[in-house]
């Protein structure tokens, strides 16, 4: 009896160690791009994924640009990003409103395990079951940093996957978790500051139909204040606006740009980034 318990425990300890070894190897293989120097690293959710043309941005900046943007990216993913980028790295961070208001259960949260990031989540009122669900999602490392992204092709009209009512639901009232998510977001930014990263912030545009919903929502003042809170973290912080030409449809749907919009934005963003050395939040408007 004692022998089987001893051997079983030994087996599982060995398995844990072996697994950690394999995990580390696979993780490194999948995400080795984080170790590239003289590159720009982009973080954001689907707005960033659809809104930045990596090839164009890279060509205009004359630097490699790698993106971790993914559909449904959440604040945990942001913390993981801030853990992984190296010191003095150049980063583009999306100040995404949907990251703040999206229901917790839809958050991606699949960008690897980190005790430090999980602890930050716990300290910001994420429950134990929510923490366990994040751990479960990350038992196998995935590749989430990439140098190529397939953008949505141009169409004369938007073709939304999600109806406007979906966003109306989000914007109806202030969600109980909003402040927690914003606090975690700020913690991530503080991590980047501590690493002395060169940070460029960007806020992607909504389609006018969604902007109307947002403008009538009690959430808007909260997300506006959040931007001020970000600014307060820096000794010098500027806000700039990028206006996209909208004589043609630049949207894929209510919250994402299409290829035309992404091309325009990437060109203009690169121009501005090359000229400025300060920490700037670029607010993109159609």
């Amino acid at each position, binding site marked *: 009896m004692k022998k089987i318990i001893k051997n079983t425990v030994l087996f599982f300890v060995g398995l844990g160690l072996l697994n950690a070894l394999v995990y580390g190897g*696979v993780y490194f293989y999948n995400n080795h791009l984080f170790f590239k120097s003289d590159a720009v690293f982009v973080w954001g959710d689907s707005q960033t994924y659809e809104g930045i043309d990596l090839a164009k941005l890279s060509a205009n900046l004359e630097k490699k640009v790698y993106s971790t943007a993914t559909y449904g990216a959440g604040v945990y993913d942001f913390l993981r990003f801030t853990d992984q980028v190296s010191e003095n790295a150049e980063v583009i961070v999306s100040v995404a409103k949907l990251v703040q208001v999206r229901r917790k259960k839809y958050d991606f949260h699949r960008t690897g395990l980190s005790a430090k990031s999980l602890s930050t989540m716990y300290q910001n009122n994420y429950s134990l079951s929510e923490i366990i669900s994040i751990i479960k999602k990350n038992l196998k490392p995935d590749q989430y940093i990439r140098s190529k992204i397939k953008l949505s092709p141009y169409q004369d009209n938007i073709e939304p996957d999600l109806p406007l009512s979906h966003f109306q639901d989000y914007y109806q009232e202030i969600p109980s978790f909003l402040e927690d998510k914003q606090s975690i977001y700020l913690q991530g930014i503080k991590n980047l500051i501590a690493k002395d990263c060169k940070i460029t912030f960007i806020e992607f545009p909504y389609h006018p139909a969604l902007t109307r919903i947002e403008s009538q929502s009690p959430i808007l003042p909260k997300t506006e204040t959040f931007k001020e809170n970000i600014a307060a973290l820096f000794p010098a912080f500027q806000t700039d606006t990028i206006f996209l030409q909208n004589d043609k449809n630049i949207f894929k749907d209510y919250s994402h740009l299409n290829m035309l919009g992404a091309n325009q934005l990437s060109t203009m963003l690169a121009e501005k980034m090359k000229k400025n050395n300060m920490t700037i939040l670029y607010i993109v408007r159609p």
Partner: protein
Amino acid sequence: MLFNSLDFAVFLPIVFLLYWAVVDKDIKKQNILLVIASYTFYGWWDWRFLSLIFFSTLVDYTIGVQLKKEERHSIRRRLLWISILVNLGFLGFFKYYNFFLDNFIEAFSFFGTTINARSLAIILPVGISFYTFQTLSYTIDVYKKKLEPTRDFIAFAAFVSFFPQLVAGPIERATHLLPQFFIKRKFDYANAVDGLRQILWGLFKKIVIADNAAKLANEIFNNSADYSGSTLLLGAIFFTFQIYGDFSGYSDVAIGTSRLFGFDLKQNFAFPYFSRDMAEFWRRWHISLSTWFRDYLYIPLGGSRGGTWIKIRNTFIIFIISGFWHGANWTFIVWGALNAIYFLPLLLRNKNRTHTNTVAQGKYLPSIRELTGMGMTFGLTVVAWIFFRAENMSHAFSYLSTLFSKSFFTIPYFAGGKLAVKTMLLIFVLLIVEWLGREGKHAIEHLHLKWNRPVRWGIYYLIALAIFWFGGEKQAFIYFQF
């Protein structure tokens, strides 16, 4: 609770430790613990259906006691029928009510009469087909005086609800399992370790083979109209390994878990895809169900004694009922009938017991004749599984007609080619390991004996890492729905 869940990974060690470390001195306490553990295991899925198991236990226990007291044949017969009607009544209602109702309505509408009756939204209690047959075996054996009825309600309740095999078998005979609840269990290290090995291999079959093959089989079967014959063949082969990995994997975990508690369950799968003919296949596939039908249905009907027509009738009855046991759908009935058609030529030519030993016994490789036999049997099985997996009869026929069309000779193509290659490699590993271990009770029973500990552990680690890294998306066990 699923065997491939975190819940079970926590549940099993707790019950194991309590069983051997806390209540090991007292067999009664061990049985009480097993009942509590089994009801917890089942109630984890839906506690409301515990009442069904309890009621079934109570009925068969009481009838068993009454059968012992009663000597009059007519009363004994009546008691047996009560047990059969109660058990099959529950099974019939939960599993077959809507099937019969829908077919009844359809049959009447064919003759121009409309019947206003609605299907009921019935939840099928997990494992009902398994524990119903297990309790029936008890009453029938007591009725036939093959078994002394028990007066120990707790031991009987533990027998009916024994958690390792409660929801998907193996379907144990009362004559084999029940007496084990009255014998003092001793912890046997070698038996427990081999139980753990069997669990490990069972999890590999379920998580690595079945779950990966399921994704591919689902994609191809669910979109069969879009694919070529060659792709449909691949889909059918993936399902063939899905169902084997799923069900034999479950059986391995069940048997291995039982061994941890000092119980011996019957082997349920004996490497069926290495069978040289269909008769051998049916001696190796879902053995506990096949032998149940053989002993409680086929033999009472006359078995293979009597004339040709009796043999044909009995073979069709047993295979069709076996098909129907799997589910309330015509596809299962046709699957059963097709297997009867496969089996009959062997039976009628008295060739159904040609291959009773293990293929290529004591050798590494099979002969050409054995290989041909295995290939043909496997091919027939793959075709039969199409009916088993299809949504309905028209789906099965359209699948088969595309499969046997000109597009059979094209290169298979479908979304998920990368996963298909990975799964095929894993299936190849499965086949190699199972071939090497085909003379054991499970594939890796003897694999360890020749090597020293670091090599053995290395193999266990490889299997465990494969489960973790190559495991497919978690799927429920197929046989839970039966």
